[in-house]
C-alpha cells in the first residue's frame, strides 16, 4: 500500500483519540475573517484552543475562499504533536480517497462535504456524518455558521458551557458575499 502514514499519530493513537474526543475550549465568540493567508485566494483566521491533555496551545483555523464564501475549511492542529492538522472539515473541493487495505476501491471515494480524521494506521481518511448524507441537512450546512456548530459538536469544541463561536466574513468591506460554486464562471476560454 502506497498511502502515507503519519507516524506521530500511528504510534500514539490513544493520545490522538483523547485529543479528538475530549472537550476542547475556544475563547473567541466572534471569529472575524478579513485577510488572506498563505494562499492569495483564501481568507484565513487562526484562533487559540485549549485542551486538558496539554498546557500548549492548539489552533483552530478557518479558511474561506475569497471568491466563494460557501467553500470553507475548519482545521484543528496541535503543531508540537503533529505538524499537520489532526481534524478537519471541507465544505467543498476535492474527493478524498480512503486508501486503506480492506476498503474496496469502489468505496474509497468520499466526496465533499466531509470530515478528515486519522485511521489507527496513521492514514488520513475522510468520512461523512449522517447530517452530511442527508440532502436537506447538507444544504443547511452550506451556511458557515450552521456548519461551525456541526464541527464543534463533532470535534467536541466549545466556548463556555455549550456555546458555539460565530463566524463573520469580510466585516471590513461592504459585506458583498460571493457564493458561486461554478469555478469556470466568468472565464473566457476561447
Amino acid at each position, binding site marked *: 500500500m502506497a*498511502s502515507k502514514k503519519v507516524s506521530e499519530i500511528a504510534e500514539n493513537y490513544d493520545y490522538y483519540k483523547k485529543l479528538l474526543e475530549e472537550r476542547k475550549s475556544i475563547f473567541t465568540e466572534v471569529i472575524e475573517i478579513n485577510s488572506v493567508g498563505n494562499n492569495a485566494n483564501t481568507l484565513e483566521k487562526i484562533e487559540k484552543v485549549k485542551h486538558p491533555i496539554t498546557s500548549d496551545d492548539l489552533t483552530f483555523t478557518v479558511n474561506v475562499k475569497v471568491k466563494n464564501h460557501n467553500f470553507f475549511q475548519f482545521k484543528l492542529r496541535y503543531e508540537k504533536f503533529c505538524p499537520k492538522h489532526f481534524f478537519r472539515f471541507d465544505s467543498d473541493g476535492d474527493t478524498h480517497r480512503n486508501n486503506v487495505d480492506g476498503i474496496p476501491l469502489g468505496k474509497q471515494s468520499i466526496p465533499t462535504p466531509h470530515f478528515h480524521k486519522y485511521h489507527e494506521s496513521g492514514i*488520513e481518511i475522510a468520512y461523512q456524518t449522517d447530517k452530511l448524507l442527508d440532502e436537506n441537512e447538507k444544504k443547511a450546512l452550506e451556511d458557515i455558521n450552521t456548519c461551525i456548530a456541526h464541527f464543534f459538536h463533532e470535534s467536541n469544541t466549545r466556548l463556555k458551557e455549550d456555546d458555539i463561536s460565530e463566524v463573520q466574513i469580510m466585516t471590513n468591506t461592504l459585506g458583498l458575499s460571493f457564493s458561486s460554486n461554478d469555478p*469556470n*464562471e466568468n472565464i473566457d476560454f476561447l
Partner: protein
Amino acid sequence: MIFNEIFDDIKKSFCGLWQTKERGNSLEIITPYATTNNRFISVFLMKQGSEFIISDGGWINLGVYDVTPCEDLSFLKIFYHYQNAFNVQEIDSKEGTTFFYVKATNEIDIPSKIFDLSLFIQNIVSISEINFENKVEKETRELFVSKANDYLKSILNTDKIKFNSNLDPNRKEIKFNAIYYKTQNELTLVNYVTGSSLTYFSNSIFKANTLYEMAEETAYNQYIHDKVTVIDTDAVGYVPQKIGHFLLHLENHTKSKIVDWNKRENLKVILG
C-alpha cells in the same frame, strides 16, 4: 478462467468511481484518477460558443489539492513536459487564478480530452508533493519575501503594486517579486535577492540579472522606469566580500538600483 470474475469486479470498481456534481453551467466530473496524497481528480466540463472546455477549475492554483507547485527548475522541467505532452493550455482569471484546460470541438473527443487533463492534474499534484528544494533555502526565501512584501505594503499605495507578478502576460517565466506601477506607463521592477548559503545567494543575484535582461527584450521595455534590487543583508549567504563583484556587475549591467535591507528606508525615496 478464475480471473474473469475478478476482472469483472475490477471493471465495476473502477467505473463506480466516476461521479458528478452540477455547478451552474459546469459539470464537475470526479474521475477515478487519484494523486499520491489520496485525492481523486476533478475536472469541470462546460460549453463556450461551439467549443467544449474541460478545466481544472483553478484547483491546482487555488491549493484545493493541498499542494503548492514550486518554481524549482527540476520541477518546472517535469511540469512543462506534462503540459506539452497533453497539450494543456492555461489562462488567468481576473483575480489571478491560473486555470489549466483543454478544448474539444467535437463531442466525440471529450472523453479523450478528459483522460489527458486528468492525467496532467494527477501528475502535477503528485509531483508537487516532492521536496525539490532545500528546506532551509526555501524557508529563507519565503521569510524574506514575506518581510519585504510587508515593508513595501507599508510604504506604498497597495493598489499600485503587484507581487509575484509577470511583466508580460505572454511571458510567464519573467516574473518579479514586485512590480510598482507609479502610473500605468511608468513602472518599477523589484527583485529580492537572498540565500541560505553563498551559492544560493549568488544564484539569486544571477537570476535577478537575467530577469532584468529578459524584461528589456519584451514590448513592455518602454514602460520600465526603474529597476530595484533589494538585498537581504540578514541572510546567511550574504557575504559582502564574496558577492560584491556580482552586485557591481548587476548594477552596471542592468542599471538596477541596489538597496540593502538594513537601509530599506531608501526604498521610500526611490519608489516615492
